[in-house]
């Protein structure tokens, strides 16, 4: 093969491999916009100026939960002061709150603070953890007043 043609092919190869790198980066662009989905659906500042009725009422300042009340189950009536430390629920003896309940798993769920809110996370329990009527599939924020069910135990955060 002609030397010039071969050199051109070799340069072309370098261009091609960089084309692959750049198209991979280009196709990842969507992922770089983390969190932008949270804003979609909300009206933009310009849209708000045009029709002020779109503005949502300011959410009432959230009060941080300070205690945990157990409403039903073996420990009913107990009130636990929250110290900003994560709590572990389950039948295991080393759990923070030991549940004497056949419907609870050894390490059933975890309640932990993040920022000013508390989150509950199911730790792979057999019977699941429920907030309201819906079963948890991942960590979820809980507000004071929402009912959390773990086995026979029902809990509620108090502000």
């Amino acid at each position, binding site marked *: *093969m002609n030397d010039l043609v*071969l*050199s051109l*092919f*070799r*340069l*072309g*190869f*370098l261009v*091609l*491999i*960089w*084309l*692959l*790198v750049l*198209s*991979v*980066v280009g*196709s*990842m662009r*969507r*992922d770089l*916009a*983390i*969190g932008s*989905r949270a804003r979609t659906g909300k009206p933009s500042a310009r849209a708000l100026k045009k029709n002020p009725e779109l503005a949502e009422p300011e959410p009432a300042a959230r009060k941080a939960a300070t205690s945990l009340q157990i409403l039903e189950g073996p420990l009913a009536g107990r009130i636990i002061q929250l110290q900003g*430390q*994560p709590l*572990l629920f389950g039948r295991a003896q*080393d759990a*923070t709150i030991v549940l004497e309940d056949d*419907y609870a798993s050894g*390490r059933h769920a*975890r309640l932990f603070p*993040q920022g000013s809110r508390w*989150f509950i*996370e199911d*730790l*792979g329990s*057999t*019977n*699941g953890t429920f907030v309201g009527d819906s*079963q948890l*599939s*991942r*960590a979820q924020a809980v507000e004071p007043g929402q009912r959390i*069910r773990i*086995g*026979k135990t029902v809990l509620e955060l108090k502000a």
Partner: protein
Amino acid sequence: MTDVQTAPVPRRNLELLLLLLALCVGGSAFFLVGSASEVSDNKNFIIQMSIMTFLALIIHVLLRIFAKYADPVILPITVALNSLGLAMIHRIDIAKGTSQSARQLMWTAIAVVVAGIVLWAVKDHRILRKFTYIALLVSIVLLLLPLIPKLGVTINGARIWIRIAGFSLQPGELAKITLSIFFAGYLSSNRDLILMAGRKFGPLQLPRMRDMAPMVIAWLLSIGVLVIQRDLGSAILFFGLFILMIYVATSRISWVLIGLSMVAAGGIFAYTTMDHVQRRVNVWLNAFDPEIYQARGGSAQIVEGLFGMADGGLFGTGLGGGSPYRVPLANSDMIIASFGEEIGLIGVTAIVLLFLLLVSRGLRAALGSRDTFGKLLASGLAFTLGLQCVVIIGGVTRLIPLTGLATPFMAAGGSSLLANWIIIALLLLISHNARRPMAGAVGPTDEIATPKSSTLKERLAVIKH
């Protein structure tokens, strides 16, 4: 916990497009190798490339069926790296008259089929959590296999191979997967205990010994076996994996400090007691000393590689235009140096970037994953890939002492190829689970991803109470 989700779109067509581009890169590498050599048998290159294309399409179709929402760029990057490696091995074959590339292609086929079986059999990575302790047991067995007298073989001073029916295998390569599964499974269920129980010791919080015991035993065992087998690269890999997984699980910087001081202690211990470690460090620091260059097992390999890369310069000598075959192990340990010579800094930068993108996609799958086990497993597997690249590319470029780790997907070697393709299959599955629509929004793959349907009765029983 931060919620990092993008709207679920399968994006399999994008994958196909990128896959074709990746195959073009591989094909043109083969074409250049063929056209530069005097004995240009282009038939061979067409056969090899069409097998590669066929294998890539198998995985693509399997993804369409089993993991529709998997990350679209992982597979194309892997295929590009694998076919570039094949082309380079083929190129060294032509120069040396060996036939390593046929072997490598056969191993690629085996690895891709196994990866396909993993995709089909596992479907949901959370199943693997059930095998936490079995994974530990399997890792120990895999690491101990080469020490069995008749089975194990010593090659280049490291006893890490076994020979079965004419095949040399490196079981330690697979152990990095099973060990990742164990670490992920153990830490995801015991994270709270490790985090909450324990004494405060100044700014550091130390966990109770019994919470950490299985982890420490696993770690000691793998390191111990590796010291006996004299495989430094894998020891670094397992050590790094151990520190990273604990850090990801607990997000305590104190763990990194403890880990790094353990590395320092281990490093000093290895340097003072083991002569082959001493030799490696000496070769690294005084590579250009003529005496060390000429010594047996001296720095000739590294220095020849550096000369080759210097010869390649910015644009390289072109595939088939240089003489990378002068370096010992040019198609396995030193394959990055071979690339440096033939496609130059520009080409090697692209390869390193492809590795970087691959690791970043693995970490992205970890970030999006909805369960702790998936997060830990994905970050562990991605980190394994990344650390292998750092250790071997750093070694070849004389940034750190050279240790024998395989460049993922590129270096000639079946076990490494097999293990890395399994890692890719697992990362694809985890990314599928991270990106698929939430339960509730009806998706075609929902029944695959919700393994709890059998517990419906129990759930009803709970609700009645």
